């Protein structure tokens, strides 16, 4: 079950972050924030190897005490179905002419999508 979904900008700050147990949101902030180290490492490692053949679904980042953190890259269509949906929704947001790239995402459609992902999985 997905408990927290975050979209991170390439400058490593959250464009969107939402979690199901709202009472302990900060914990998820910490979790996602610290995961970025791994993302950074993976991306830099991949970049070194071969820029074109990036594995965009980075997969399981690592298991923490209670949760497993997965990561996907938004640049191209990722593999698992769940992430494809998320990605499509994200693409829609990006296509919104009124959306300023770099701003936090405030979209009902995206919200709904994320909620659906969390509920469906639970």
């Amino acid at each position, binding site marked *: 079950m997905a408990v927290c979904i975050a979209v991170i*900008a390439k*400058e*490593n*700050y*959250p464009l969107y972050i939402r979690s199901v147990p709202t009472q302990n*949101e*900060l914990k998820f*902030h*910490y979790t996602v*924030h*610290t995961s*970025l*180290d*791994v993302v*950074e*490492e*993976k991306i830099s*490692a991949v970049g070194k190897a071969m820029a074109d053949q990036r594995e965009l679904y980075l997969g399981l980042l*690592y298991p923490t005490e209670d949760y497993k953190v997965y990561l996907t890259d938004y640049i191209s269509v990722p593999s698992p179905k769940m992430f494809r949906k998320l990605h499509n929704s994200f693409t829609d947001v990006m296509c919104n002419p009124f959306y300023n790239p*770099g*701003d936090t995402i405030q979209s009902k459609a995206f919200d709904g999508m994320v909620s659906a992902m969390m509920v469906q999985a639970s």
Partner: protein
Amino acid sequence: MSVPDYMQCAEDHQTVLVVVQPVGIVPEDQFFRIYKRIASVAQVSIRDSQRNLYIRYRHHYLPENNDWGDFQTHRKVVGLICVTTCGSGKEWPQTSERFHGQKEVFGATLYDSRLLVFGLQGEIAEQQRTDVAFYPSYDDCPDVEKKVEDFVESIFIVLESKRLDRATDKSGDKIPLLCVPFEKKDFVGLDTDSRHYKKRCQGRMRKHVGDLCLQAGMLQDALVHYHMAVELLRSVNDFLWLGAALEGLCSASVIFHYPGGTAGKAAGRNPSAAQGQAADAGKRHRPGALTTNGISADTSSEIGRAKNCLSPEDIIEKYKEAISYYGKYKNAGVIELEACVKAVRVLAIQKRAMEASEFLQNAVYINLGQLSEEEKIQRYSILSELYYLIGFHRKSAFFKRVAAMQCVAPTIPEPGWRACYKLLLETLPGYSLSLDPKDFSKGAHRGWAAVQMRLLHELVYASRRMGNPGLSVRHLSFLLQTMLDFLSDQEKKEVTQSLENYTSKCPGGMEVITLPDGLRLHPVPFTKLPIVRSVKLLDLPVSLRPHKQKGLMENSMSTKSPFIYSPIIMHNRGEERNKKIDFQWVQGDVCEVQLMVYNPMPFELRVENMGLLTSGVEFESLPAALSLPAESGLYPVTLVGVPRTAGNITVNGYHTSVFGVTSDCLLDSLTSVRTSGCLVEVIPSLPRLQLSTSLPRSAHPLQPSKEELSSSVSVQLFNGETQQLTITLENIGSEDLETLEITSKISNTKDGISVTGLPISSPLRQVLKPRAETRPPGSESSKTDYNHVKMLEAVMTFKYSGGAGKVEGYYRDLTLGLHVDVEPSVFFTRVSTLPATSTRQCHLLLDVFNSTEHELTVSAQNNQDLVLHASECQRMAIQVDKFDFDTLPQPDQETVRYTSLKLLEEERLHAQASMINSTLGITWDIPSVRRKGEASVEGVLNQLVLDHLQLAPLQWDVMVNGKPCDCDIIADCKVGDAVPLEVKLTNRSKNTVGPFALTVVPFQDYQNGVQNYDLQDAVTFIGSNTFYIDTVNPSEESLCLGALLFLYSGDFYLNIKFQDDSVGKEPGAGQGKELPLSWFGLPSIHIRAQEAPMEAGA
């Protein structure tokens, strides 16, 4: 073994452990001074061999850990150095006793020990003992290092002998089983003769020998032994020791591959040595490789080296394997944890962060049982450090923060707030949080606001608990300033409330706070409380604006561009700010800057002491306090100040005091502020006049507001009314008034208002006199038309200067607008003339209309008052003497030449009308409201009326019987007497007139409309009844004489008929037009002929 040594690294496996401890009472600082000197001997080259011995010193070591010495020999305390103070010989035995006691603690494993005695002199100190060194004092011990080296060599000898002993010890003797402490009970009753057991013993011993070789500097031997041990132990599934053998293999390989060490800079192990090693790493001969020399009997050869040594990848594989084996044993947690740490350090060197993080992840979950708080802190700190080492800064920050929180855990009786604060500060980079507000001024904040905010809150709290409220204020200010967008309304309230609480004890300021560790906390100006949108320097009020004298006017036009006009506007903000504004401020006068601000807070924001920050000119800022309502829109705020010197002033920013924190907000760092320039010239001071009038001021702006007026008065007057206005000028400035120039200008009507009374006298008198409306009298309009109120406006300008400003050529203008609402009073709706009986007079008939709502009395000179009710119209007849307009002053030649004919004509008409006006002197009076004024007929006079009112240029005087005869004068004569008749013509026109012919026709008026001209029998002319008058030159006279004889008594009239004879040949050819008929207004003559005396005489 419960306490892990987090600082361990792979190369520690080649060190021997020496414990340095104080015995008895040793001052701590002295001990550590000595300890440092001892510890500097970390590597000793052994004489006669090219091997090095590495020593690890500890001043504190749990004997419990010592028990694991067989498992990994580097854990075994092999040397003990005791440091003690001994004041006298008496104490010596006791000291010696203590030393021995200390030796007992590690007794089983010690190879050698030393005692360093400080302070003892004399007999005892003289004795030569190898295990004791005497020094007179802590400051006088030059050969400590030397002693330590000797000591190390002695350890080496023991070590080497042990190694050789064990290495060659395969001759069938029974090999003892080496155990770790928790294993001992497991092996009770085990069959010691089984092959399995033997192999186990062999394997463990091999591993042990490997350790010894490694310590003794024989790397290759160690590798071989480790390999053999792995083989042996694997076959018997002795996992714990297998793990140890694998780890040994890894350590040896790491030492081989990374001679620089894996501890990194942080560990600080003999940096010069490390560098030296690194420098010649490539061609360097490993000590263990030198088999041909010295006491080493390395079984391996050069060939075997590459084979035995693990590749960097294999090292990690083997570490993994080892750790997995350790993991099988709950009691080996410390070993496992340390192995993880060691592996991570190796991986960090290999720059394999991902794998390293896996090791660390594993390390996090190794349960070591109940840890003390201090151990927890240590553990988290080291995790943070290791994460930092592999480049996982966020993770590092996370654990550092956890460590910080651990410092102040509620279970700790004395929370270490300082340590907590210090650790928290170290986490800042990990959360990409800089405490310099400048880094936040560029655009929107992007980052992990939630976690950053949390961290800031923690910093605030920690600094407060540390007892440094100034620091908390600074952090809280920072939080408020940089995270404002992310704070909820409730949080905003809370944060500001606590900020106010803190600042009540320690007000926040603009000084840089320097922390003991050198971190500088920059001041946090509250540029968002309130947010300033624009800054605009305001010109002085109109009345105070300085103007440059025309003559002295410099070329004010910008000569920068060759173009007079260019559509390209440079949109350069920076330049715009530095642009000079094209108005001036005046020294000593209050100058204003308008800020548009808004309050982003959900509650009322009180800003105190808000003022301007300027440079260039001495400026006295007059701070303001304001209160902005919650989430206000843009609010204009005017900041004022007085420049005290002249020059160019730049407004750099503003300062505020909000929630007890003073801030200096510089515009340079506020990119969102719009400004049209911040540089303005301050000119030297000028006098300042204050104008007051006897009439109330009006807010009523003048209609055509083309110019701004300093002040204006308005007054309501009836048409023709006079109002006196006193203007008082007061110099309220500090400079003397040197010049004053007054001009007035009527702004919208040409002649609606007359301002008289100039030039100035004291007190200045101004008379305002609205004139009657110019209205063509012929146009009959409805009465309502007269009721409209007319506005008249005039502007008076007072131009003055003085003081230093005058020297620079500046002056000031004070303008006073006069606004007059003219209400109609009386109108002359129609005007006409009736000839009077005398040709020198006539009757002026005026239809007077009272357009006011009051009863009104109209009076004229020598005339009866006429009472008019509201909206009543009555005719008024005034007998007037005809006017001689020629007496009016003629315009001089100069004026005539430059003025149009039409204007001249108007001028003339105006002069005539005012002459008539003043003669008539028609006034009105409204008793009910005590108002009175003049009524002018000027506007209603038309040419016809004027002609009638004018004395004819030709003046005719008729004398009967020598008496002038005019009007109603009846000339008496006697029947039968000749009556002399004299007609005199005076030419007052400019032209020659004549010749004329005059015919006298007598008639009788029966008063019933019948006139009898048939009087041949009654009247006889003596001579001709026609007079001829020759040409009369201007201002000349001509006289004709004749006589009449009345034959009967009666009333006779003489009608003098006129004939123009000037162009006799062509009578009536246009001459009549030239000379208007009115010029020939000859008086009619009434003669009464009487007989009585004649009868008496008869």
